[in-house]
């Protein structure tokens, strides 16, 4: 299945890009993060990030579906 991955802030800087298309056999949002974090040295453990699926916050256990837009976000620091 094909997943669009969005990176923000520190994660975007560490990955060197804001968005990429990833082919995966399935699994969960958290599993995808862990695999990408290892591959690209993203730097933050899954426990420290927030995840969203199709513009809705989601838990790392959420299953992936073909065509999903998955966002990986460091701790918010607005305000």
């Amino acid at each position, binding site marked *: 299945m094909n997943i669009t991955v969005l990176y*923000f802030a520190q994660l975007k800087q560490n990955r060197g890009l804001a968005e990429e298309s990833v082919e995966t056999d399935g699994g969960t949002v958290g599993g995808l993060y862990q695999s990408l974090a290892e591959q690209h040295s993203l730097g933050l453990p899954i426990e420290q990030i927030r995840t969203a699926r199709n513009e809705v916050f989601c838990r790392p256990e959420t299953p992936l579906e073909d065509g999903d837009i998955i966002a990986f976000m460091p701790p918010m*620091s*607005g*305000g």
Partner: protein
Amino acid sequence: MRFQVSNEPVDPASLRSGLLSKTAGGYCSFEGWVRNHHLGRDVIRLEYEAYPSLARKQGESVLAQAFDQYDIENAIAVHRTGSLEPGELAIWIGVSAAHRDAAFEACRYIIDTIKETVPIWKHEFYTDGTEVWVDPTDCSCAHSHEE
């Protein structure tokens, strides 16, 4: 839309005028300003990055929670994105209510919850040429120890 993410400077006077009401007995606002120092370092500018679509949804949700929890008449909030210099307005929140207690409490709730849950990030640039993505959960950050 009660919550906005804006790449342009914010005008507090026009935002306030949108809240004026003869049924409200009080109004409370909060302005977050760009500070020229952080952890003893001199900040020359900062950049706010957002996940705009999710930030708008989450910001609306925070304001909706404030309406549920406090007896307020109206509430709006605007968060800046892009490059800002010290002294500039980073966030503006305004709340009107029949009575002042609800306005104060809701305003405090809104700023605290926006900071914690709305996907916006602060990238600080220092006079010595270095830069840091601010992480409020990082223990080396003094924010968690100030209060």
